[in-house]
Structure formats: structure tokens, C-alpha cells
């Protein structure tokens, strides 16, 4: 009983220390997580009991952005998108696809910010604004590339499918190597 009381007191103290800036970042992360799951999951599942799990997942990610749950949420979103378009016959709509890609990246970059930002930090507004501005640049470039890929890809893929697959795997490997090389010393 005493341990519970101590935990309650500790929780109150922690709650009293929350600062506005980090709370705003976590709120944005929560909204991005909800948007990601909302766009990724099949529309028929969104109206049922399944919604509670999705909201709970987004809340947990917003509360604990340092763990592996962010990766899990992003992968669930990716496979949820595949499930909705393959198993539930949802149509691949451009706005939904691009919106999902943007929301997934926002989850990733806001989780990166929230994980290094203490919950009680004194945060000037320029820090978050600059962070979101850089994310916006990335999203604009990515949206352009994504739309181009969706429009142009069906024209070149077909007879050369096997070749494209092998080349794609090679590109994946090369990309992973390039990305990880950047941090090796």
C-alpha cells in the first residue's frame, strides 16, 4: 500500500513537471500516429472494436518514443496498408498513399525529436518550428518522387519484372549500406 502511495506521489510530481514544449511535441506525435494508423488500416476495421487498439498503440508510442514501439507501429502501418489493399480490396488512391507516407515519416521524425527531448525541458518555439520545417522539405521532395514513381512505374514495369526485382533487391542492399556507412568511424 505504501509503495502504491509512493508511486502515486511520484506520478503527481512528474505530471507537475511536464513542460508545454515537449507536451506539444508528444501531442503532434500522437496525432501523426493516429493519422498513420487511420490511413493505413482497412476502412472497415476502423469503425469496430479494433479502433481502441489503434488509439492505444498511438498513445503508447507518444508516451514512450524512445523504445522500439515506434518501429513496430510503422511496420504495422506498412503491413496494414498491404492488407487493406490486398485482403480488403481497398482502392489505392493517390492522396491516401501520399498522406500515409507523410504521416509515417512525421511519426518517425517527431519520435526522434521526442526521444532526445526531456519531458520537462525549457524549449524555445524555434526548435520545434525548425525541426518541422526540415521535415516539410523532406516531405515535399518525397511526395514529388512518390507521385512520379506511381505515374511512371507502370509504363516501364511489366516485361522486365524479373530484372526489376533483382535490381530492386540490389538497390535495397546498397541503400542500407549507404545509410549505415554514414555513422561508422
Amino acid at each position, binding site marked *: 500500500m505504501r509503495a502504491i502511495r509512493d508511486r502515486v506521489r511520484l506520478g503527481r510530481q512528474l505530471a507537475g513537471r511536464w513542460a508545454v514544449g515537449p507536451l506539444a511535441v508528444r501531442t503532434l506525435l500522437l496525432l501523426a500516429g493516429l493519422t498513420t494508423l487511420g490511413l493505413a488500416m482497412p476502412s472497415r476495421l476502423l469503425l469496430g472494436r479494433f479502433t481502441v487498439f489503434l488509439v492505444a498503440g498511438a498513445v503508447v508510442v507518444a508516451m514512450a518514443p524512445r523504445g522500439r514501439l515506434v518501429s513496430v507501429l510503422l*511496420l504495422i502501418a506498412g503491413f496494414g496498408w498491404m492488407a487493406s489493399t490486398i485482403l480488403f480490396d481497398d482502392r489505392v488512391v493517390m492522396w491516401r498513399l501520399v498522406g500515409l507516407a507523410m504521416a509515417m*515519416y512525421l511519426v518517425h521524425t517527431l519520435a526522434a525529436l521526442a*526521444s532526445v527531448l*526531456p519531458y520537462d*525541458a525549457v524549449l524555445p518555439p524555434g526548435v520545434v518550428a525548425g525541426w518541422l520545417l526540415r521535415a516539410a522539405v523532406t516531405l515535399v521532395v518525397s511526395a514529388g518522387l512518390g507521385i512520379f514513381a506511381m505515374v511512371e512505374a507502370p509504363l516501364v514495369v511489366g516485361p522486365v519484372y524479373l530484372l526489376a526485382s533483382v535490381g530492386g533487391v540490389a*538497390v535495397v542492399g546498397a541503400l542500407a549500406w549507404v*545509410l549505415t556507412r554514414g555513422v561508422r568511424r
Partner: protein
Amino acid sequence: MGTAGGGIPPLPVFDTADLADLAEAAGPAWSATKALGRAVLVCCVLLLAAVLTGRYDLVVLAVPFAVGTAISLARRPEEVPVVEVAAIDPRFPEGGQVTAAVCVASSDRVRLDLVVVRLMMARWVRLRFGDRPYAATVARRATAEIPLRGRAVRWGRHALGPTVVHAVASDGLLISDALVAPELWLKVYPVIEPFAADEAMPRAAGLVGFHRSRKPGEGGELAGVRPFGPGDRLRRIDWRVSLRSRQLHVVSTLSDRDAEVALLLDVLHDAGRSGGIDGACSVLDTTVRAAAGIAEHYLQRGDRVSMLGNGVPARRVRAGSGRRQYLTILEWLMEVAPTGADASGAVLNPQLISPNALVIVLTPLLDPRSAQMLAALARSGRFVVAVDTFGAETPARGSGKWAEAANQFWRLERANVIDQLREHGVPVVAWAGSGSLDRVLQDVTRMAAAPKAAGR
């Protein structure tokens, strides 16, 4: 200086442990965060799924991760910033404003997206944002200053820091090792309690000074008019009296003399809970502030003031006068701390104090050794005044059934000790600020002027 064989000396061979030590000695560096691993993982999994299933839309989902990571890592820093805590002036009185800043200087070509600054601080330093961490950005080849504003609410030396900084770059994909800046020491001078005393001084020492003596001599204080005698200076002739009496008369004056005041601080124990400049005073607070006030008063009058502590080891400021001595005493007072109950040999040697000095002992009389010390000083012929720094509002200890009775017994015993000291010729007065010693000083002066019944 060549080698023994005259050839090229062999190159040192490092194993991996040596290289790790060298890397550690090279200082902090950058390392990848979980976000970088996440970006690579999600991107690769989506691309692999796209290749295996032939779905172009999965490539679209993977593109932001690839593009974002590439753009972020293109802005990869190579050097870690330098951190320092600085203040315009780290010296100020109690309750004064702290104006310091944490400076994070980056010489890198890329901007640091975020620096998180955490600093430890002493209990008596109250910053505007408390002990919260601070976040900021650092532009390329620039210095970010994070202002630290607040108050220092109690005298003493207080540490601001050490400061630990983590720098974040490449949109959270890279984070630096902990950058540590040493603490900045703030010197907080005690606020001087108002104090003023009568001119009476039991035994003046030098030939010049502020205090009038009882001996005639060259001074400014008028003693009377007397007939001219051999050795009198012509400028001392009082022409008005001389014309009236038709005989030369001179104005006689009393000589001006200085005195030495020895302030003895009983720092064996502290009692009460200090609330800083805005709250209640502990015994040590009263002692230090009163000592500063008394020292300032006598130094302003041109006297020599020395200061001693009866702790272990005994600390002392030699007698001196002037502004420099006052600053030395303030610095000395900042280091005052209770010595503890186990300071077994903490009885002051009376030989350390000049025989002519007026000894003002600031003591809470909580320890029998304090009363022994006062008695020893009185026996050695010093003019001793005990100032009781144990305030009436100091809370009683204990909360049990018998606590009140025990406290009453303890107070009775203490009052008994004070009465015994008075019987032995040691006046004990409670500290009450301005003018609290006047009456006692007059008594001591009268006692000093009285003829002695027997030699000491």
C-alpha cells in the same frame, strides 16, 4: 638523439584495446540514435516487400525515409561543440541576481538541431526555471547562449554545475556523447545585519586611531584649557583665554587611538533550519551575518579587526584594517561551516588573541566547550563579550511525549551556564542587531579603567 642501432625505431603496435583507449582519450564523439536504425529498418523492409510483391505503392511509403535520412546525413557534423558556464560577475550579496549563461560553441560547418543542457545547482541557488533542462539550437560556427537567471538566497560558495550537454544533429539521427563543463562557483556574501556601537573601547592600542583615549595627547577631542608649559606647541595657544587672563593658555586635547577587535565565531554546531535570506535564520546564519556587521562597523571606524573560528582545524584572519581586510573577512565568512560534534579538541588557544583586543565571541552556547572557552579567555585577562546567537525562535527538537519537558530542562541548564558566565565577568547578550552591544561595552570599558586589585 639517435637510436642505439642508428636505424628507424620500430613502430608501436596497438591492439584493439589500445585503440579503444585512444578513441576514448580523444574526447566525445557522435553516435547513431535509434531513429537512424529505425529509418534504415523501415525503409529496407518496405522496399523488400515492394520488390517481392511487385507493389509500387510500398516504394512510395519508403521514399520519405530514404530521402529524409540521406538529407539528414548530408548535414553530418564532424566536431562536437564546446561547453562553458560563465557569469559576468560571480560575486554578489545574499538575495542578489544570478546572471550567468551556458555557452555552447560550435565550430562545425553544419547547424546543430538541438542541444539539451542539464545542470546541477546548489540548494541555495534558485533559477527561474528551477532544475529543468534547457533546449536550444546552435547555428553553424556560432555560440548559443542559454541565460540562467535567478537568485542566490544564502551566503556561501555555491556551485552552478557541473553542466552536461548532449548535442543532436541530422534531425535526431546522431547524438553526441555527454559534454561536461565544470561547475562555476558563485561567491555569495552575507547580508550585513545593521550594527552600531558606542565609541567606548576597553583598551585602545596604537597611538593613532578613531577612539578618544583617557590620556592627554595630540588629538581632536577637547580635554580643556590649561596654562602654557614647556614643550607646548604655539599653535595650541588659546589667544582668547590668554588675553582675558593675561597669561598664556593652551588648548589640551585627548589623544586618538585605535583598537583591535577580535571576533571569535563558535562554529561547533548549527541549530535551526535556515530559510535563506527570505526565511528563518539558523544559528550559523545569525553568527555569520552578525560577524559581518560588527566587522564592517569597526573597520569603517579605522580599527583593526581579526577573526577566528573555534572549529577543527582552527581558521583565522589576522588583524588588519581597511577595505581589503573587510573583503578578506567576507571571503573567510563564506567558508564557515559547522565543524561537527566530534571535534574533540576544539578549544581555542587564548594566545592567538592580542591581550589588548576586545574579544567578541559569537556563540549559541550549545556545547560545554564554548563556555569553557569563554571562561578561559576571561581568566587570561581578555575583555570578552559573549553574543548569544541562539535565537528565541529556534525550534525545539524532538516530537515525543517527553520532548517538551526535555527541552525545558535543556533551556534551564543553558540559562544556568549563562548566569555562571556572568558571575565570572563575561557579559552575555542576545544578538539584537543595531546597538545591542552598547551597554555591555560601556560596562567592559568601566571595568577596564578600574584599578586592579591584583596583578594578573
